[in-house]
C-alpha cells in the first residue's frame, strides 16, 4: 500500500510528487473503515456494554459516525490535493518547462491513490 511510504518533502520547484501528504491522509481515511469492520475478532464481544448495548452493537454503530467524519476529512484532503496539483501545473505551464500536460496519462489521479488503499483489502 503506497500510503505506508513516508511523505517525501517537496523539492524546491516541484512537479507535485506522486505521494503527497493529502493523498496519504485520504488513503488512510478510506482504508480505515475496511480494517475496522472486517477485523471481526476485535469487536465480537459482549462487554464493555454501553447503555445496555453489547460491545458488538454499539461499536459498529460508532463506526458509522467515525466513517462519516473520515469521509469529510478525505473529501477536503482530496480537494486540497487537486487544487495544489492544478496550481503546480499552471505554474509549470507558464514556465514552459514541464513535460506534463493535464491529459498526460502518467499523472495519477487522487483516485489512484485511494485505489491502492482498496487493493490492500
Amino acid at each position, binding site marked *: 500500500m503506497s500510503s505506508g511510504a513516508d511523505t517525501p518533502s517537496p523539492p524546491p520547484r516541484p512537479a507535485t510528487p506522486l505521494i503527497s501528504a493529502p493523498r496519504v491522509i485520504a488513503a488512510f481515511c*478510506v482504508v480505515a473503515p475496511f480494517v475496522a469492520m*472486517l477485523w*471481526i475478532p476485535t469487536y*465480537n464481544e459482549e462487554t464493555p456494554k454501553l447503555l*445496555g448495548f453489547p460491545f458488538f*452493537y454499539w461499536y459498529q454503530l460508532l463506526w458509522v459516525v467515525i466513517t462519516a467524519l473520515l469521509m469529510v476529512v478525505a473529501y477536503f484532503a482530496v480537494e486540497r490535493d487537486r487544487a495544489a496539483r492544478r496550481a503546480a501545473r499552471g505554474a509549470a505551464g507558464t514556465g514552459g518547462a514541464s513535460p506534463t500536460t493535464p491529459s498526460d496519462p502518467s499523472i495519477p489521479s487522487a483516485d489512484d491513490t485511494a485505489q491502492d488503499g482498496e487493493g490492500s483489502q
Partner: protein
Amino acid sequence: MIDAAAGKAVNGVELGVVIFFFTVVAVLGFLAARWRRTGDHKHIHEWGLGGRSFGGFVTWFLLGGDLYTAYTFVAVPAALFAGGALGFFAVPYTILVWPLVFIFLPRLWSVSRKHGYVTPADFVKGRHGSRSLSLAVAVTGIVATMPYIALQLVGIQACLDVMGIGGNGSTFAKDLPLFIAFAVLAAYTYTSGLRAPALIAFVKDALIYLTVIVAIIYIPTRISGGWTHIFDAAQTKLTTPNPTTHKPAGSILLAKGNAVPYATLAIGSAMALFMYPHAQVGVLATKSRNTVRRNLAALTAYSLMLGVIALLSYMAIAAGFTMKSLNGNNQHAVPALFDWAFPSWFAGVAFAAVAIGALVPAAIMSIAAANLFTRNVWVDFVNPNATPQQQTQVAQAVSLVVKFGALAFVLGLDATSAINFQLLGGVLILQTFPAIVFGLYTRYFHRWALLLGWAAGIVYGAVVAWNQSSATQHHFAAQVALIPWTHQKAYIAVSALVVNLVVLLVTNLVLRAAKAPAGIDQTTASDYEHEAEGEGEGEMPEITPVVV
C-alpha cells in the same frame, strides 16, 4: 399479550392513514413530471436521469431512496429476528459502501458525463469496445434487479398482512391491495420517470425518520427493563434450542465460524451495491463530479438509521413475538411491533413509511433496468437508429415489464426470507465488478478475459445458490455456502468473484500472449477527471447511439 395476526379484523384507522399518504404520494408522483424540467421530456436523459440536474440536496434524498428500502425495514430485521448477530452484517455493509463510493464513483461520473453514458453497460462498451461484454453487464443488471424489486413488494405485503388486509381468502383477494399499490407505482413511473421517485423520496424520508425516532424513543419505554432487557430477551430466545432441530437459532454475538460469513456478506454486499443500475442512476443524475463525495458524510446517516431499525427486531422478541405469533413469517417482525406498540394512527404513519419506502426504490430500480434494456439491448442489437423519443417509449414499456417480472417473483417463490432475494441479486451483479471498476482504472484486462471471468463467476454463483436447500425450500434457501475444499462458509457472491478473478487473470495472460485483438477505447485518461463546471455549466453531451 400478543394477538396472533391471523383472522385479525382490519384496523380502519391504520388503513385510512395509509391510504391518505398513499394518495398524497401518487398525486406527487404524477405532478413530478413538471418539476425541474430542463428540456425535452421525451428525451431519455429527461425521463431516465431527471435531466442530470440534481444537486446535493436532491441527491441525498434520491440515493437514500435508493439504498434504504424494504431491505432496511423488513428484510434485515427479519434476519436478526430469525438468526441474531449474523443479520447485523447490514451495518458494516452500509458503512463500507461509502469509502467504496468515494474511491471510484467520481471517475465513473466523469467519464459518463463526458461521453453521455447513461448506464454502466454504456461505459463498458465505450471502454472495452465489446458489445458482448456490454450485453453481459446489461442483462446481469436487469436480472439482478428483479429480485431486489421483489423484495420491495414483499415489504409492502408484510405491512398489508399485519394491517389485516390480505393474508386470508382467495389468492386474488389476498394480493389485490398489492396489485393496486403496484399499478399506481407503475403508472406514475411511466409518466414522470426519475423525477417521481426523487420528489416522493422527500415524503418517504420524512416519514421514515419520524417513525424511526419515535420508535427508538417510545418502544423501549413500553418494554420494561429497557435496552438491557431487550438484548437479554433476544439472547435467551435465540440460544434456546429449536425443539425439532435441537440447535439454537443463533446468538446476539457471532458464533464460531460465522466471522467469515459476516465479513464476506458485508464486503460482498458493499461492492455489489454500486454495480446495481439503480444505484448508478442516483449518481449519474447528479450535476457535478463532487456532489456525491460532498454528500458522503450526510449519507452515512442512513447507515445509522439502518442499524437502529435492525435492532427493532430484538424489541419485537422482547415484546414477546415469536415465529408463531407472526404467522410463521418473520418478515412481519417490525410491522407487527409497530402495530402492537403504537396507537393506531401512528402505526398507520409507520406502515405508510415502510410502504412508500418500498415504492420509491422499486420505481428507481425499474427505471434503471429500463434504461439498461433500451440502451444496451434494444438500441445495440435491435434498432440502432432509434430516436431519443423512441428510446424513451421503449424504456417506459420495459419499466412495466420489469415490475411484472418482480411481481411474478413474489407470487412464485417462497418469500419468508426476503433478504435472500437481495443477496441472490448480489451474487449475480457482483460479477460485473471487474468489467466496470477495473475498467475505470486500467485497460490491462482483455475484453474477452473479462467476459470469461464474468461467465465463470455467474455460473459458479448460480449453481451454488441453486443447490442450497432447507427444510422449507429446495433451492436458493441460503446465500452463504461452504468454500470448496474447506469447512468454512462464505457469502456465495464473494466466492464466485474469486472464481471470476482467477479465470480473468489466467485467460488475460493467455489472450495477451496470443495478441488477441483488443477493443477500441473511446475514452482518454483525462475523461476520468472531467468536471462539468470547467467545460461550461450544464452542457449536455449528445447521445449518439454507438454501434461498434
